[in-house]
Structures are given as C-alpha cells and as structure tokens.
C-alpha cells in the first residue's frame, strides 16, 4: 500500500498518525479519570458517567450563547470559564446524587449499577425536555479551530493539542490531590479501611460525597472539552461510556497509573491498527486483545496489593 508514495509523504503521515494516537490517548484519559476515581476509590459503578459529561457540554453551550449575546468582545476566552462552570455544575449534581441516591447503596455495589443506569435514563430525558431532542452546535472561538502547520506537510489539529494540555493539567492536579493533599490521604484511608478511618475521626460520609463530586466534576470538564471534537445531544454521553469502562477496567480499577497505562496501550493499538485496516476491524481487534489480556489478568494491568 505504500509503493505509490514518497518517503517525505510517508514520514509526515506517520508523524501525524502518532499525534492522532496521542490525541486519542488524551481523550481516553480525560473521560476515564472521573470514572476511575468513583469506581476505583468508592467501588461505585457509575453508569451515568456519560450524562455528567454531557451536562458539562450543555453548560459549555449555554456559556457560549451567553457570551455571544452579552459579551461578544470576550468570546475568544469563554471556553475557560465554561470549563470551570461545567466542573461546578456536574460536581454539584454529583454531590446531590450521592446524597439522595448513592449513599444508601454503598453496601450493595451491584445495585448502584442499576440505580445509576436509571439515573442516566432520567438525565437523558431531562436533557431532551430542557434542551430539545436535536443536537446543539457549540460555537468555538476562531483560535481554537484549524490546525498548526509544523512543516509543509505536517499539520496538527489545535483542538487536539488543547485536549492534550488539558489532560496533562487535570491528571497532574488529580494526582496531587490524591497523593499529596490531606484530603487525598483521607480518601485513600477510607478506601483501604472504612471502619478504621471512621474510628480515627475521618468523616467518611463527607469524604464519599466530595470524592463522588470530584469524579463527576471531572466528567463535566471532559464533556466540555469534547464539544470541540464530538456532538452535543441528549444521548451523546452513550458514545463514551463503553470506551470509558474499557479503559478503567483494563487499567485495574483502583489505580490512577493503571488508567493512564491502559488508555495509552488501547489508544496506540487502536490508532495503529486503524491505519492498516478499516475502523470497525481495528476496534474488533483491540477489543479482542483487551478481552484476551483480561482473561489472563482479571485484576487489570495495575492492581493495588491489598491483604484480603
């Protein structure tokens, strides 16, 4: 298949394909981070993860409309405010959901699956009733469109670079919060031994609520960022949920590093395969590989060593 092309052409395509893989990697990490926190730290299977993302996307859409109507001069910077608002909105809804629904189900982890699935249906219909069944188009400021010309034939999409930077920032932020801050220490203590953590004076209920809120908030930011590359509609969240679970489960549920490693291996495999065969076949082979590895190593790539 390469016979007809010059070396220069092929070189630039491989560079761009490398970038495509990196962008896919950042997208995977960004959508899986929130779920990894909730699933990994709390053992709650959050089927409504995609809907929290789409809430963030709708917040972005509303912010962009507000700026266009009232503050057109500041439009080029609205996206940053939109991401913060998306974090706040999804996080707040997450905390509310935890308080109303999830905290009653901690002792029944499988029931959280059913409850959050129901929640995802409710949220979808709520989006449909509030924003309409049709997809909405989020307008982006001019500087976020188009691509960077690195050389004559190598072009890198700006929104891809933006997602990559955002992913690095959020990952570093989460790692810091989880492993360096006082609150992160409390979260890890609760994960390792809930009763003991309570006995030494940690308010475990509060820790749970904020953990869930943080996970949902990050989902909101991810949704906000994905308005650049995907669609915003009531059911768009469903497009992400399968890949998200795949990344988290493959990585080993309780490990942040595992999530990153798994996102990296899945995205690189997929984007390399996509180049040599059709998209559907690439997906099939990637899934087969994941299933195969999980059969040999059911706990995922990285697993916490806990005394059982």
């Amino acid at each position, binding site marked *: 298949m390469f016979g007809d092309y010059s070396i220069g052409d092929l070189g630039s395509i491989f560079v761009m394909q490398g970038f495509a893989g990196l962008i896919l990697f950042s997208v995977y990490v960004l959508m899986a981070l929130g779920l990894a926190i909730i699933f990994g730290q709390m053992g709650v299977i959050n089927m409504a993860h995609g809907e929290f993302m789409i809430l963030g996307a709708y917040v972005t859409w509303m912010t962009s409309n507000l700026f266009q109507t009232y503050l057109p001069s500041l439009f080029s910077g609205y996206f940053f405010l939109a991401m913060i608002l998306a974090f706040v909105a999804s996080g707040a809804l997450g905390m509310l959901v935890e308080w109303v629904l999830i905290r009653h189900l901690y002792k029944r982890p499988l029931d959280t699956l059913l409850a959050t699935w129901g929640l995802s249906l409710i949220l979808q219909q709520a989006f449909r009733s509030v924003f309409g069944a049709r997809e909405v188009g989020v307008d*982006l400021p001019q500087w976020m469109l188009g691509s960077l010309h690195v050389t004559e034939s190598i072009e890198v999409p700006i929104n891809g670079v933006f997602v990559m930077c955002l992913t690095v920032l959020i990952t570093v932020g989460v790692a810091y919060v989880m492993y360096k801050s006082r609150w992160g220490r409390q979260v890890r203590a609760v994960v390792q031994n809930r009763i003991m953590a309570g006995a030494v004076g940690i308010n475990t209920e509060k820790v749970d609520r904020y953990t869930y809120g943080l996970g949902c908030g990050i989902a909101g930011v991810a949704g906000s960022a994905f308005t650049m590359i995907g*669609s915003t509609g009531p059911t768009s969240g469903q497009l992400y949920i399968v890949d998200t679970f795949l990344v988290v489960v493959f990585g080993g549920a309780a490990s942040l590093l595992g999530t990153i490693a798994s996102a990296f291996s899945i995205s690189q495999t997929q984007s390399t395969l996509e180049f040599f065969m059709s998209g559907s076949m690439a997906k099939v082979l990637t899934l087969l590989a994941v299933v195969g590895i999980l059969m040999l190593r059911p706990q995922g790539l990285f697993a916490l060593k806990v005394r059982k």
Partner: protein
Amino acid sequence: MSDEPNKGLLSPLRRKLLMGMAALPAITMLPKASFAQAPATSAVNTTGLAVTDTEVTVGILHSATGTMAISETGSIEAEKLAIEQINAMGGVLGRKIKFIQEDGASDWPTFAEKAKKLLVNDKVAAIMGCWTSASRKAVLPVMEQYNGMLYYPTFYEGLEQSKNVIYTGQEATQQILAGLNWIAKEKGAKSFFFVGSDYIWPRTSNKIARKHVENVLKGKVVGEEYYPLGNTQFNSVINKIKLTKPDVIFTDVVGGSNVAFYKQLKAAGIDLSKQALLTISVTEDEIDGIGGENIAGAYACMKYFQSLDNPNNKTFVPAFKKMWGEKTVIGDVTQAAYLGPWLWKLTVEKAGSFDVDKIAAASPGVEFKGAPEGYVRIHENHHLWSKTRVGRAKLDGQFELIFETADLVEPDPFPKGYQ
C-alpha cells in the same frame, strides 16, 4: 281517515328517499365531484377502520425518546403540520384527521409492537412513521400481516418494495447516481474516498456508488472505510485521506459521529472549499449540531433543501416555522415526512375509499403538485419520482442549490448491475 291524505302526500317522498338510499353504494362509482356531501362511512370504509362520519384516525409512529429522537423529531413535526393543514382545508373525504402518536423509543421491537397496537386496537387508516431501516424492517411484517398502510419518509438503501408501504424518501440510486455524475463532470473527479458508518445503509449505498464510479464514470475508489456507529475519533481516516489525496471524499457517516467527523476534518486543516466532499447523510438538521463553520463548502446530495426557491416551498417554510419556532430547520427527511399525509389524502380521494387494498391499488400515478420539493408522483413500485439536487453548505447552516436534474428521476429499488 283524516291522516290518509297526509300519508298520500308523504309516501311518494318516502319512496324516493328509499330509492336514494338503495342507490348509495353506487355513489362510489361516480366521479367525486358529483356530490358535495361527505360519502357515507359504510361506503368508504368496508374493512372496519377507525373512520366515523366526521373523523378518520391515523397513527404517527416515530421515536420521541432515545437516540433516534434527534432525527425523528423533525418528521413528527412535519406530519403534524401536514395533518393540521389538511384539516384546515376540510379534511379527507369530508372527515377531519385525528392522529394517535406512539413512541417507538429508538427500539426496533417497540416499533413493531406499537405498529401492531395502532393497527389492531386503534384500527388506524394509515401510519406515518419509522425512520431507520431497522425500524422499518421490524414494522414491515406487521403491516403486511394486518394489512396496514405505512408512509415511510427516510432516504434509504432500496432493495425493498411492499404493497403496504409508500416510500416518500429516495432510494439509493435516486440519491447517489446523479450526484456522482455531477461531481465527476463539474470537478473532473477521478478518485474517490468513501467514509461511512458501519451498517446496512452506508454499506449498500457505497456498493452502488463504487459500481457507478468504476463502471460508468471510469474512476477509481482509493479508499473505503467504515467506523462503528457512534465512533468519535476520525483522525486516522483523515490521515489516510491526506495520504491518498482523493479528488472527492464521499461520506455517509450518521448520527453523533457526523459531528465528530466534520469537526476533526476541519481541525486537521482540510479546507472544504478546496477539497471536494460529497455527502449523502448531512441535511440542515445535522448541520445544526455540526456547526456551519465546520462544514461550509461541502456538497450534499438530497432532493430537498430548505432554501429551495419555488412557490410551494415559500409557503411551506414559514408555515413550519410558525408552528414549530423560528429557529427550527427543515431537512430532506422532514420534507419527505410532510409528503406522507398529503399523498395519503390524495390517494384516498382518488380511490374514494379508506380501504387499504384500494389505496395500495390507487397509489401509482398519484401526484402531489403542492410538494415543497416541487412535484412528486408515486411510481408503480410505491416509491416517488423526484428530482436529485446538489447543494453547497454555507456558513449559516443552509444549503445553496448548485445543481438539479432536469427531469424527475425514476425510483429503482432493485437496480440492475449495481448489486
């Protein structure tokens, strides 16, 4: 005795009346202009449909919830508008149309179940409904078993024909061939790159397109790629497009993937004013989600655009916006859905009956001069004769008409040499 003269006076009248009633069944054979009053229910409804002296009930069966609600909402709106307009004009055979709306909920077995409910319990005279081929395939056996009449609005892959369905959208050859001919001639295009979602419609459409490109246009297909429904990452295929440098990118990506595809195409620096792209899956509805700036310059091959400049469309678009809001847009399928109730009304009036068998038999040749797309006529194969048009997407999300076929294109659901 005093009553006798009265009786004598009345009896000739009564006799005439009785004679008149005996002649009623014969009325259906008279041309419809010969009577002003609505014909008797027993005459126009011999199969027990939900028809009264003042009302006739039809069903609307689309997804108002679930994934497909994005696409099907426009069809529901168009059908309700058509029904309202028909009622304002006096209805069908003197009867107002009442509709029962059921929700297919984007789930194919639900579609079949609701279709059965509409036919068996509600005894509707016709159903305006379905959108995806999968939902139509689920409903088809029900329509045939209980002898219902379905008006199906979406452009689709063809390879189907039923007595119980009128296809108001285009089948694949009607949509694709003229568009390919045009772009090959206009742009001197020789090499094509196909990108589609991975299910029956894009695969069948691309198969037809490939045969046409290779056998008729003597061109070359340099790539044919499919991605799963709902895929959101297209960077790899975009790199392949950059590598193969096709004259034309031919796409039938659907749903949320569509948005991702065009956003990423734009982000990758592919300028659609220089790189020709022909799509058969993007209407004004989809551009709402994609954003005009991401797709401006692309060509779409359809039979209707909201911007069409003809007298019918000039009354249709304001009426639609008045009913459903200034911001709503009207895509190809929405217009095709609007044709359903009208074609049914015209066919019922031609047949002089609501009976499904008579409607099925009377359908071929029914013409609708008030269609927003201009003029349509039902073919013997229950598809529509209609024109194929190419439009170029503009920044504001509307299409600018670039080309239309001179004549109506004959529907050919089982194209020879393309299978």
